[in-house]
């Protein structure tokens, strides 16, 4: 598992770097997958509501109503319908990459088990929404999805009667079940929305809106795809004929072809077992859990800054407990705390200038005290020499800041760069402990601890408290946000920063303190603007193209062209284990009046045993137990066979009395099956036994025995 994760991480980080070069850090779609998912969900919702207005919910009118929509308003309804499909497909892409990425980056530990596990539920919801959606079109794909899904659900064995019997043939098609699916296609997304809201509950400032440019780009790409390649229905459903091939939406229906090879129960086991295993991942080794942040009440006046900055909602402000005259104090929920230290960076008492007695901030990481940090910075300063000394504050997830250490560069590593209280930068720069400070963290907008880069930027740019004092010259404070593949960029940033610091020493143009609160940034060689725009166009086109293709291609061959489908399906109650008998007169007089009845019937029935022969050779043998807790319900049979088209002799036999041999019902027919025909063999005792094919069928000839 560890090596899979590592390999996946290496791939995803390279993709992220590539996209950052093309889109820039702020618009990098790889770091905006969650918010893109929300955006796509809204597109699907709006387009879905629009299509629903014109949709006819009857099973016989559904297909035609969608055809009319595309015919009568190709530029409104047609696009809305295509958007509904393609945005749903894009949602699958975004959600799957999002899940893979959180897995690869190990962002599911500690408190993060919550979005991880709720995310697994969301995957199921997403697929259920998509599958029920394809059902509603009631074209050949819908027919295939309806039959395959109900057969698959029946393999669980929780339904008294196989629900696949709702879609046996045109005579037995149940419009009610179809209506139920429509309601599910409305209810499931609503529940999914609730689950999405729950999914982000443990993240402060969760990103649910992608940057506008990215949202517009995605929407334009999907509209372009809808225009170029409108989503259409396949031929209308006809339950009396099985579709030979269907254009499958591989984003939602990729597992369906497996159902023709793997038993449905096995596939359920694989999917449910796989989900349970995934849900357990947050607790599998290697577990690293640093002790949670601790509040030191002697230094806490309840100012709420740590509460405002905690990315994981681990801090709450509670009523004061120590009798001091403050109203509130910070309180850490140890289960939610990720030990990132961002709260320490927010605490106004975490300043290295305090030197009377023991230095303790109002909130501290037990593993990484502020006083220890102060000592470490002092030692770091003492270690380096030269005319352009730099102290780098980095984290564990950046582009390996530790490797920058040399005679002029000291590196102080923190759990997250957002843990650094701004007064430390003040101290280093104003007391000449180094000529410059470089703050190094994860890729921009993708901080491992979620908000470390954002808060750091805001604190040193005078946009967020605690701010770096205006008096600290910002051209001595540099920032570098790089993922682990960008060590070269980090090194280059340091080299440029040092040259810049030497220039300052030589009397170069120093930015006036207080005038420009923005930190210094390196000018790294990137792609020229035309290349970036072309790259973005290619990325959008690739997404749209992949969706357009995989939404219907490659087609799936359900039935070979010279085959027909034979379905043996019926529900029939076997004979009672014991025949009912009349109560004797004596028994009746001994029974209280209110409990008397004429006959005594014991519950329980014999199983139904069925044989079906095709051209004299056994096709099916099966014993079916009665349903119900008391084994007194009907026995049900559902079996599907592919047989070559042409003339066939069928022999059906049924035993319902539990005897060792002999049959209560026997019938034979010779029928000519057309290619692709869906031929149903029913059983109705009242009509004398087996019923072959539709009632109006003329070519079925009763065989003389």
């Amino acid at each position, binding site marked *: 598992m560890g090596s899979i994760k590592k390999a996946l991480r290496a791939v995803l980080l390279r993709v992220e770097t590539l996209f950052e070069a093309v889109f820039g850090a702020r618009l990098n779609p790889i770091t905006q997958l969650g918010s893109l998912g929300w955006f796509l969900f809204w597109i699907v919702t709006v387009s879905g509501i629009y299509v629903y207005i014109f949709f006819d919910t009857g099973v016989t009118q559904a297909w035609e109503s969608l055809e009319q929509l595309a015919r009568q308003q190709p530029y409104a309804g047609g696009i809305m319908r295509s958007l509904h499909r393609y945005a749903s497909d894009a949602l699958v892409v975004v959600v799957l990459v999002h899940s893979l990425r959180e897995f690869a980056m190990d962002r599911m530990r500690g408190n993060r088990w919550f979005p991880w596990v709720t995310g697994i539920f969301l995957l199921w919801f997403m697929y259920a929404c998509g599958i029920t959606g394809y059902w509603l079109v009631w074209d050949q794909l819908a027919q295939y999805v309806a039959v395959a899904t109900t057969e698959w659900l029946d393999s669980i064995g929780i339904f008294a009667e196989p629900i696949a019997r709702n879609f046996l043939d045109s005579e037995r098609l149940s419009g009610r079940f179809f209506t139920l699916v429509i309601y599910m296609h409305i209810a499931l997304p609503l529940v999914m929305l609730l689950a999405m809201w729950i999914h982000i509950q443990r993240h402060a400032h969760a990103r649910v809106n992608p940057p506008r440019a990215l949202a517009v780009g995605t929407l334009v790409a999907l509209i372009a795809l809808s225009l170029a390649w409108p989503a259409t229905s396949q031929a209308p459903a006809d339950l009396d004929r099985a579709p030979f091939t269907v254009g499958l939406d591989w984003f939602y229906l990729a597992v369906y072809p497996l159902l023709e090879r793997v038993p449905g129960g096995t596939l359920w086991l694989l999917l449910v077992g796989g989900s349970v295993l995934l849900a357990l991942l947050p607790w599998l080794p290697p577990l690293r859990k640093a002790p949670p942040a601790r509040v030191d009440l002697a230094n806490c006046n309840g*100012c709420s800054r740590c509460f405002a900055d905690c990315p994981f909602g681990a801090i709450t402000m509670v009523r004061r407990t120590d009798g001091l005259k*403050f109203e509130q104090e910070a309180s850490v929920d140890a289960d939610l705390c990720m030990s990132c230290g961002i709260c320490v960076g927010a605490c106004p*008492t975490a300043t290295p*200038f305090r030197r*009377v007695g023991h230095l303790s901030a109002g909130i501290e990481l037990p593993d990484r005290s502020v006083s220890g940090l102060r000592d470490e910075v002092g030692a770091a300063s003492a270690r380096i020499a030269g005319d352009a000394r730099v102290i780098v504050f980095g984290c564990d997830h950046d582009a390996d800041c530790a490797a920058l250490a040399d005679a002029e560069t000291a590196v102080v590593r923190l759990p997250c760069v957002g843990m650094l209280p701004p007064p430390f930068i003040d101290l280093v720069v104003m*007391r000449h402990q180094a000529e410059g400070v470089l703050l190094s963290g994860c890729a921009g907008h993708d901080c491992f601890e979620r908000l470390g880069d954002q808060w750091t930027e805001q604190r040193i740019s005078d946009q967020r408290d605690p701010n770096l004092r205006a008096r600290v010259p910002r051209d001595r404070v540099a920032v570098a946000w790089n993922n682990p593949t960008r060590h070269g960029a980090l090194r280059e940033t340091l080299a440029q920063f040092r040259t810049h610091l030497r220039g300052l020493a030589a009397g170069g143009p120093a930015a006036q303190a207080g005038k420009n609160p923005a930190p210094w940034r390196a000018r790294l060689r990137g792609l020229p603007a035309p290349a970036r725009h072309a790259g973005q166009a290619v990325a959008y086109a690739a997404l749209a193209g992949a969706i357009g293709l995989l939404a219907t291609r490659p087609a799936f061959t359900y039935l070979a062209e010279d085959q027909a489908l034979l379905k043996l399906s019926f529900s029939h109650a076997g004979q009672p284990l014991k025949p009912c008998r009349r109560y004797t007169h004596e028994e009746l007089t001994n029974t209280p009046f209110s409990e008397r009845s004429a006959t005594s019937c014991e519950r329980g029935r014999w199983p139904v045993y069925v044989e079906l022969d095709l051209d004299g050779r056994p096709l099916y043998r099966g014993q079916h137990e009665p349903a119900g807790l008391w084994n007194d319900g009907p026995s049900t049979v559902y079996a599907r066979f592919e047989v070559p088209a042409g003339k066939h002799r069928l022999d059906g036999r049924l035993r319902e009395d539990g005897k060792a041999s002999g049959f209560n019902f026997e019938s034979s027919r010779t029928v000519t099956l057309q290619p692709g025909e869906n031929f149903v063999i029913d059983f109705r005792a009242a009509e004398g036994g087996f019923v072959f094919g539709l009632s109006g069928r003329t070519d079925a000839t009763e065989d003389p025995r």
Partner: protein
Amino acid sequence: MTLLQWQDNFSIGIEEVDHEHRELIELINALHDSLANDRSAVRVEAVLGEVLADISAHFALEEKVMRARSYDALEEHKADHERLLDDLRDLMDEQAAGAALDDHAFGQRLSEWFAGHFRTHDARFHRHLVS
């Protein structure tokens, strides 16, 4: 010698803020008194560092209270806070650079600042609260 003196008209009417104001004055006085024995630059700077941290924390709380009560002059008030912190940091850097602490001037500076801030900015907040 007492450097700063609490006056009842400093009170703005929020218990936790007034409490911390009083505490701050006590702390500054105590730290100042402790300098009588040791007036080395290191000691002076350490004391100022302590004052800086406490005032920073106090301002953080006061600004939170103001935000919670949607105080319309928060921006000006906060600017005055920043001014004091900058002043204090200047003083600390001067000390670090080896300047001798002029007791009288230091006391003057602090009490002017406090009294001035209390009389104008805090008083205005007090009026906002009672109105």
